[in-house]
């Protein structure tokens, strides 16, 4: 099992590092696949590990996107003029301005959603079950509408992210640059969650999922773990949002930033497809989902959403526990669920 893991990690790492050179035509597609992996992994912190079905993580995605772009622009130029007049034509970032702005933007794209999650978490994470789901659904929609009313970030018109600066490689180089940024962010997300799930943090999230009242009765301040979990998700989702804003180049409030109907739903589907509540499930789910989705868009254009709908139905009916959940049911021993046989003989019978 240990060796298998090592091979798996190695293969993925090699694939990730070589993909842009092996499949240059699919660079952007694979970058988006890593973004989807981040979204699925972070949704699973709430939806899978903690059992809180959130529709609201898209909120952090959008906030990250707007914060990142605004920082990139606002650091060097008047943001208002940029958004009012298609500023990318008037103002030009020099390469050093661009990269300085991007780094600062991505850092803030992580931090601001974390603060937001901490602030709203105390109120919202007190809700449970359906109430929590509905409330978070409202969050994403409200945020989209709000963003559509704020002039300085372009309101309903949307805003552009700074274009790639002149004199530093061509568009191919730009794609490679963002490819590796998304890949590294995905690796960081995965590594951090893998680490955190092996700590007390992971245990308690599972306890909250299985029986929150019992966890409290055992003296655990569950609220702290719930808020902390949401902050972790918000951080990585925010950075992913910042990256997507730059990759797409154009930020629109309800279709791209607070895109509840696309990214917001995809992150849930991917985690469920792969197997929620497992580390690898969301990763596998996101990859499979992305490949199917791109296939549908290529081969069933016009019917792509119908095909996607069919896929969703198939997932829910045949893999209610996801790919990893299905594997666990088939091969429980492989997941460490064993009755100790040697022990059974030595067992003192309970009188």
């Amino acid at each position, binding site marked *: 099992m240990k060796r298998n893991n090592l091979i798996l990690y190695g293969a993925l790492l090699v694939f990730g590092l070589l993909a842009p050179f092996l499949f240059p035509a699919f660079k952007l597609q694979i970058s988006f696949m890593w973004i989807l992996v981040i979204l699925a992994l972070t949704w699973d912190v709430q939806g899978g590990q903690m059992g809180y079905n959130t529709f609201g993580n898209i909120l952090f995605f959008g906030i990250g996107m707007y914060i990142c772009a605004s920082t990139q622009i606002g650091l060097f130029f008047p943001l208002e003029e940029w958004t009012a007049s298609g500023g990318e034509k008037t103002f030009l970032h020099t390469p050093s301005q661009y990269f300085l702005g991007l780094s600062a933007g991505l850092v803030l794209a992580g931090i601001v959603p974390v603060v937001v999650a901490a602030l709203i978490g105390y109120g919202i994470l007190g809700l449970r079950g359906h109430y929590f789901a509905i409330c978070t659904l409202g969050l994403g929609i409200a945020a989209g509408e709000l963003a559509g009313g704020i002039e300085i970030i372009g309101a309903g018109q949307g805003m552009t992210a700074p274009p790639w600066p002149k004199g530093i490689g061509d568009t191919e180089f730009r794609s490679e640059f963002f490819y590796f940024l998304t890949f590294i962010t995905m690796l960081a997300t995965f590594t951090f969650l893998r680490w*955190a799930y*092996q*700590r*007390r*943090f992971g*245990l*308690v999230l*599972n*306890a909250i*999922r*299985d*029986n929150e*009242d*019992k*966890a*409290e*009765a*055992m*003296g*655990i*301040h*569950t609220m*702290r*773990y719930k808020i*902390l979990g949401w902050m972790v998700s918000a951080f990585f989702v925010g950075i992913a949002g910042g990256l997507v804003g730059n990759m797409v180049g154009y930020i629109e409030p309800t279709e791209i930033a607070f895109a509840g109907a696309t990214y917001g739903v995809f992150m849930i589907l991917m985690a469920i497809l792969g197997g929620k*509540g497992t580390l690898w499930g969301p990763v596998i789910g996101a990859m499979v989902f992305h490949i199917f989705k791109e296939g549908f868009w290529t081969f069933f254009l016009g019917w792509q959403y119908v095909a996607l709908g069919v896929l969703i139905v198939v997932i829910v009916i045949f893999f209610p526990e996801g790919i990893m959940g299905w594997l666990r049911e088939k091969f429980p021993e492989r997941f*460490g*669920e*064993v*009755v*100790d046989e040697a*022990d*059974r003989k030595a*067992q*003192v019978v*309970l*009188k």
Partner: protein
Amino acid sequence: MASILRVDKVSKYFGGVKANQDVSLSVGTGSIVGLIGPNGSGKTTLFNSIVGTHPIDRGAIEFDGREISTLPVPAVAKLGLLRTFQQTRIFGKVNCIQNMLISSNPTKENLITIFSKVPEELTEKAENLLKFVGLHQKRKLLAGDLSFGQQKLLELAMALMNEPKMLLLDEPTAGINPTLINGIIDRLITVNKEFGITLLVIEHNMRVIMNLAQEIYCLAHGEMLASGTPEEIKNDQRVLDAYLGAG
């Protein structure tokens, strides 16, 4: 004998329903006390009031010299007062060892302890306690796959893992195979004698409670009807009437 838990004239109403009315009891340190009463007499409500599940309407609850009636559940648990549930509550989708590890009592919950590894010796302690309740061979199975009786035993082990000063047990033998009941009584006595944990036990099985408790309180219609030694309770006409519905 000094008392570890003192419930003083506690009342709890749900709308017009008087679930508890001026209920008082006291539990001596290191003793085993029983709480009996017909269904719906307010026993579980009293447990919920004690551990802080809901606010009480009147009265005072003192544990280990501290007023606890306004504290939330986790804070009461951290003081060393734990309860188990009538319907078992375990963490079904993780294995027994993990159930035990979750139940260990972290003295502090800050960023460092939340993200620190679970210490090795805790696993050892968990295994020993699982041995004590006879679940060692099933320690790597999902807790949700255990039978109801085994889940009850697991819940007891989880409570012990927390090292409480006092345990409130809500029907520890309900739904358990009669041959297992003696095993549970033995273990509860061991818990009390050797681990030094004070027990307050709700129980419908008279044979169990008469063997176990040194003192028994009887609730009926939300009010404290009688208290005394098992002998006194057994012969108390009011208790018999409450149970058999006479008068």
